[in-house]
C-alpha cells in the first residue's frame, strides 16, 4: 500500500471493469424488477362486462328513428328491411351522445354527428363506429360492442 496524503485524491482507474460490470448488473436487475412490477397494474383480463348482448327491436320502430336499449350505449336503426347499429360513445372523449332528429349531439364538447355517424362539427376525430349486428329472427338481434364494422354495413331483418 502506497503512502498517500488524505488530501490527495484517490486515483480512479479509467477502466474499472469489475466496478463497471457490478454497477451495470445491479442497475439492470433493478430495472428488470421494475418492469416485472409494472406488469401487475396492467391486468391480463379486463374486468369489463361482456360487450355482446341481445336486443329486441320494437316492431313499430320507424325508418330513421333511433332505438337505444335502456342502459346501453348503442343506437339501432331500421332502414327498409335492413338493420344497423352504431355506438353512441363519442369518439372524442368518451361521453354518451344523444340521438337527435339530425343525428347525434355530444354534451361534453359539442361534437355533432350525422345520422350515419359521420362527424359534422366539433373536435371528434372519427365517425361513430358501426357495430357488428347479427339477426337471430323475429326482430331480435345480437350486437357486439367490441366489434366495429365499416360504416354502411347493414344486416337483413
Amino acid at each position, binding site marked *: 500500500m502506497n503512502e498517500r496524503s488524505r488530501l490527495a485524491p484517490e486515483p480512479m482507474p479509467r477502466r474499472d471493469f469489475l466496478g463497471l460490470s457490478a454497477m451495470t448488473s445491479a442497475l439492470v436487475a433493478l430495472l428488470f424488477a421494475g418492469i416485472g412490477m409494472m406488469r401487475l397494474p396492467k391486468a391480463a383480463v379486463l374486468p369489463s362486462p361482456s360487450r355482446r348482448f341481445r336486443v329486441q327491436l320494437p316492431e313499430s320502430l320507424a325508418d330513421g328513428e333511433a332505438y337505444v336499449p335502456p342502459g346501453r350505449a348503442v343506437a339501432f336503426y331500421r332502414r327498409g328491411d335492413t338493420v344497423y347499429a352504431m355506438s353512441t360513445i363519442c369518439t372524442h372523449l368518451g361521453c*354518451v351522445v344523444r340521438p337527435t332528429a339530425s343525428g347525434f349531439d355530444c354534451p361534453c364538447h359539442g361534437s355533432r354527428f350525422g345520422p350515419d355517424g359521420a362527424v359534422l362539427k366539433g373536435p371528434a376525430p372519427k365517425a361513430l363506429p358501426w357495430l357488428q349486428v347479427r339477426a337471430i329472427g323475429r326482430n331480435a338481434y345480437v350486437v357486439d360492442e367490441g366489434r366495429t364494422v365499416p360504416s354502411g354495413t347493414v344486416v337483413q331483418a
Partner: protein
Amino acid sequence: MSRGQGMAQFLDNLKAAPRRFAESAWRSGTPNTDRSRSSFVFGNVFLHLHPVRTHRWSLRWSTTWGLGIASVSAFLITLVTGVLLMFYYKPYPDVAYDAIKDIHFVVPTGRFIRNLHRWAGNIMAVSVLLHMARTFYTAAYRKPREFNWVVGMVLLVVTLGLAFTGYLLPWDQLAYWAITIGANIAQSPREVTDALGMTAVFDPGGLQKLLLLGSEDVGAEALIRFYLLHVMILPLVLVLLIAVHFWRIRKDGGLTRPEDADRRVGGPAGIHPSFTEAPQKTYHLAAVVRGRTAAVGRGPEGTVPAMPHLFYAEMAALMLTVFVCLLLSLLIDAPLKELANPSVPENPAKAPWYFLGLQELVSFSAFMGGIGIPAIVILGLALIPYLDRETTGTGEWFGGPGGGRLVAGSAVFGLAAVLLVETFAIRLGWIREWWLAAPQILITLVNPGTVLTLIYALYSIWLVRRHQSGRAGALGLFTCFLCGFVVLTIIGTWFRGPNWGFYWSRAHWPGH
C-alpha cells in the same frame, strides 16, 4: 457512598428529569444569543434545513410574497385533513358516495374538515402556480438554481395530479364525467396513431388509459387506482420532491438576490464578520469537498439570524394560509352532486377549474389540448434556465431587458391573441365546419390551441431578435402563456354551457 446519599441522588435526578429531558431534546439552552440560536436551528431535525443566517433581502415580502411557504402550508393542511378523511372514506363505487355523505352530514366536524381539504387543495394549486410565476419573473431559475426549477416543474405536475385524482373520489356525477374525460385524454395519442394507421401495433394512448383505469371504463378498478394515487403514490413523490426542493434551496445559496442587495436593503454601517464568496480562510473539510465553500471573511453585513427572523416570516405565511383556508371552508361548502350515472353525462361536464383552460383546448383537439400543448409548455418551461444564460436582472421583479414594460406589452399581446383566436373559433368555427372531409391529422396539427401556441412562439422569437436576449423572449413567452391560461380558464369556467356552447351567462343556458 452511603445508602442515604444514593437515595438523595436519585431524588435529585428525578427532580431534574424534566429539565434534563428538555436539554437532551433541544441540546442548546434557551436560544437567546446568535450562537445558541444557530445551534438550536441546526440541532433540530425539522429546522436544520434552514440556514443559520438569512439575508434581509429574502425577508422582504415583495421578494417572494411567501408563496412557497403558502404552498407547503396548504399541502400540510391537505395532508392532515386528508388523513382524517381516510377514517371514513371507502374507495368503492356508490359506497364512496355514501361515505362522503356521511362525512358531510354526520361525522362531527366532517363537513368542515372536508371543506378544508378541498380549499387547501385549491389554494395549493393556486399558490404553486403563483410561486412558479414569482420564480420566473425574478429570474430565480438562473444558475445555479436550474435543477431546482426543474424539480419545481415536476412538483407542479404532481400537485395537479393530486388535485385531479382527488376529484374522482366522491363518486358523484361531476367526478365521474370529469374522470371519463380525463382518462380519454390519456387515450388521445390514438388521435395521432389512428391518423398514421399504426394503432394496431403501437398504442401508447390505450396503454395509458388502461393503466389509469384498470378497465375499459370508469368503475371500481379506476376508483381504487385513483385512491391509491391520491393517498399514497403522489403524496410520497411530492414529499420526496419537496425535500429535494428545500435541500436545493439551501445548497444553491438561499433565495436569489440582486448583486447590490446589500446596498439596497441598507445594511448597517461598518464591517462585520460575514460569509463571502471570496474565501479568505478555508476549512480543511471544505478543501476536500471541492467547489463553492462556506468561508468566513469580513464585509458589509446584510444578513440576520434565521432564528427568529425567518421563522416569524414562515409562521406568518403558514398562519395566513390557515386563516384563508378556514375562512373559505366556513363560507363555502365543497360541492357534492348526485351519484355517478354512467349512462347520462353531466351537461356540461366540467373538470376542476384549474383544468378548464385545458378543457377549452381539448374541445378543439383531444390530443393537442390534453397532451401535446401541455407537454410543450411544461418542456418549454423546464428548458428556460438552460436557454437563458444571462445574468442581468437576476433577483429583480421582471428583471432583464425590457423589464416591466416588456411584460406589460406581452400581456397585452397575449390577451389580444387568445381573445382573437377564441372569438374566431367561437364565431366562425374551425376547419371541420368548412371542409367536412378534412383529414383528422390536419385538425390535430392546426387548431386554435396550436395556432395560439405558434403565435406566442413567433412573438417570443421576435422579442429575442429585437432585444438580442433570450431572457426577453422567455419573459414574453411566459407572460403570453399565463394570459392564455387565465383567459381560457375564465372562458371554460364562466362562458361555456351545455354541449360546451358559448353563453354570455348562465342565465342564457337552455333548459335542456
